[in-house]
């Protein structure tokens, strides 16, 4: 059985062949990968920035709730929905379920 990425203990991480960074000429975070590039909208950028294999899903949601205005539940759902899409597209992999040592 696969455990969903959005399981709260996951520490999502960028897939190996993806490069994520700020690009001044686009005034945005971008994702670069074989044969492609994507300009991320600000919220996608803020989420991916925290997909570093260190933050758990719960931690990154809490951070975003603290940093951005808006109902906590909306942020929670928005983040989980994004993580699902990003995993489906292959940008993210779920990371280890075990706790950080």
């Amino acid at each position, binding site marked *: 059985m696969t455990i969903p990425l959005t399981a709260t203990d996951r520490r999502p991480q960028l897939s*190996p*062949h993806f*490069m994520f*960074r700020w*690009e001044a*000429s*686009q005034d945005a975070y*971008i994702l*670069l*990968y*074989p*044969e*492609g*590039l*994507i*300009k*991320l*909208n*600000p*919220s*996608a950028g*803020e989420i991916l920035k925290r997909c570093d294999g260190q933050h758990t899903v719960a931690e990154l949601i809490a951070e*975003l709730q603290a940093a*951005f*205005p*808006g109902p906590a539940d*909306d*942020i929670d*759902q*928005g983040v989980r*929905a*994004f993580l699902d*899409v*990003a995993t489906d597209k*292959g940008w993210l992999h779920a990371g280890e379920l075990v706790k950080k040592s």
Partner: protein
Amino acid sequence: MPKDSNGLTLDGQGKPLWLSLELTYRCPLKCSWCNNPLDFDDYAARELSTEEWKRVLRESRELGALQLGFTGGEPLQRTDLEELVSYANELGFYTNLITSGIGLTEERLVALKAAGLKQIQLSLQATEAAVTDALVGATAHERKLDAARRIKAHGFPMVLNMPVFRQNIGMTDAMIAWAAELGIEYIEFANIQYYNWALMNRDELMPTLDQVREAEQVVQRWRDKLGKKMTIYFVIPDYYEGRPKACMNGWGAIHLTIAPDGVAMPCQEARVIPGLEFESVRDKPLAWLWHESPLFRKYRGLDWLPEPCVSCDEKEKDFGGCRCQAFLLTGDASNTDPACGRSPHHARVREAVDTAARPLRFRKPLFKRAAGTVTTAFLED
């Protein structure tokens, strides 16, 4: 925080996001579908120096370029490839190498990895050595397989590129099976474009529509079977579709190609079009070439479009198709791409397709890419 989760778009906003550097037209192989110019041999003496390429890299990053393909010819023929990859990597490019695999030794792979190379696209023409070797005019098959294994062993993401034509289209199935076993994640079946060498050999190379459809079904079966393990690109050639491709996403929209002699072009084939002025980064700043030069402005946007495109609602999707194809088949690059069913010249494309389908015909040998095979004097005036 907004709730939008994947409203992700890419608009070049007038920036050359994709940069292709044709480092050299030198190549140890002799492919009959090569898209290099027929007079490729004349470029060797005019190739940009290492420092000149570095300046191109700096200036194109300043213009907003992000994806970078080192191509050719065979880019491994340049001994400064690693140095250029490393420099491009520092500047923030995502670096891709497009190679035949010939010359990709263990030492060079290690050096390219250290230089920060991100991705390798390797071409392979067939699953049987005799077929590959005959097609490329050299004993290349085993060396290509060797290169594929090494690329995987070094952990590079890899695109396996199979140029598709009549001589190998029947191997689609075997090719995917082989790639799946090796764990290759991307295969691209590149239905070749008929320019330069490929155009000379078009009647011999062009597959029939039935062959194309059959290959398409093979691809679909594998997609169902492999799911996310492998991404398979297979694009039906526009000759058969009745609709042109959105060539390069539009002329001078997001693609910038620099030829070995520094000439800046909207696409790799643009030099087949006569009457355009091609200028080199040796003589002009890249920003001027991209934004201001008559060449890049000539077919940029939609204002220059002819009928039937002007009154067609597909124009924002395909920009009237490919300028090079329009020139080669109608004699005028400003015409609607004849691959379009609405083009008054569409019959030329139909003729070529019909010739391919004729069952019994006299077969000519393929012209191999080689210096002095053809005179190109008629291209010069």
